[in-house]
């Protein structure tokens, strides 16, 4: 899968994202490949499962930023929704929001794994 196909598959703004890597496709590819190894998502899942809300807020906030910089917009907005839910006291929404996020995450992970140039 090429970057263009990945961008289409997971709704990434490829031009905007490439600009953050100085226009280097190789660099973007390298960091996309690294993304599934990032510990933040795993930490978020653990926090959701154990109901540690401040930790959910913190890790979701971090994931929102990293994903946004990588152009993984669905993961970014899904994480933002989790931050919002915890802050507004709507903890009961967290499991549902996380399930949606997990689906986007799995899709991105799969697309990234298929990525090659």
């Amino acid at each position, binding site marked *: 899968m090429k970057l263009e196909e990945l961008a289409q598959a997971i709704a990434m703004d490829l031009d905007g994202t490439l600009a953050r890597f100085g226009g280097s496709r190789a660099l973007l590819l390298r960091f996309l490949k690294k993304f599934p190894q990032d510990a933040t998502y795993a930490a978020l899942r653990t926090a959701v499962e154990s109901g540690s809300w401040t930790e959910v807020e913190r890790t979701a*906030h971090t994931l929102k*930023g990293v994903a946004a*910089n990588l152009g993984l917009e669905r993961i970014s907005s899904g994480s933002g929704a989790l931050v919002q839910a915890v802050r507004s006291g709507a903890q009961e929404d967290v499991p549902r929001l996380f399930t949606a996020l997990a689906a986007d995450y799995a899709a991105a992970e799969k697309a990234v794994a298929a990525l090659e140039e």
Partner: protein
Amino acid sequence: MTERQTILIVDDEEINRAILSITFGEDFAILEAANGREALDAIEAHPGEIVAVLLDVVMPVMDGFQVLEVLGERGMLEQLPVFLITAESDQARLRRGYDLGAVDIIEKPIVPYFIRRRIGNVIQLNNLVRTQDQMLAAQAKEILDLNSSILETLATAIEFRDQESGEHVRRMRQLTLLLLEVLMERYPEKYFFDEEELRLIADGAVMHDLGKIAIPDSILNKPGRLTAEEFEIMKTHTTQGCVLLDSVPRLRENPVYGYAYDICRHHHERWDGRGYPDGLKAGEITIWAQVVALADVYDALVGERVYKKAFSHEKAVSMILNGECGAFNPELMDCLTYAQERIRQEFRVQKSERSGAS
């Protein structure tokens, strides 16, 4: 710009740091820190080098707000622009960033073109302010130096009439400064002069004999002893100096005026009250007038005059300490005793310079 300036990037996520590094790496040297604690360490390790901090908010160990708080407490935010780079969209939290002293808040995902502009503008502006500050300081110093050298020229012109070279004027400045320094060393709880006051007193010392311009040559350069009448006229050089100072337009507004006036008028007062023109005694005489009086006596002793040969440094010091040349503040006598070697050394250097130059 001779050297690349440095930007500090603080984010716990490697990807975020990498993106900012790529964005700024072409134009700036980059330092990276993975949390607030590391950021503070980096700032401490590179004083004056960092021109901007790009700071993530949510981080382990120490977050961005805490970093801002610490920098604010240390009064460092004036010099060091901090930009929050954050995925935060909550307005109350963004406001808190500004309230803590962030220059600007930039949202993730960053857009390289805009972030380069926004941060570059602030850095450029700060560079401009820094350059202008340095120029202003240099100009202020130039004006002060010019002031001092005009005063010295004037004083030298006047001294020239009684066969003195410009060196007496320069030595008065140096000796006065040296004695003031020794006073601060010996009596730190009693005497303190800051840099500006030292400069003003030294300028005043240079002008101590301005009033001699009003004394006729026949008296000023008389080889023998002055008659009582002539001496009375000679004594008026103190008050004549003040008249001269008062005749200079707007000098009163200059901070040197008070010192110069006092020194002109009172550099012949004596600790025991038997000096002139006002017969002040002990603490009634300002310490700077006392210091100039002592410097003047010492320099007159070690120099040659129409009426006498030069005494050696040792002889001059012992004459002063024995009370043969007036009565002085015991604290100043202590300083003279304590610093006599320093005075001798400084003076010897100048003597050899003088013979080398002539």
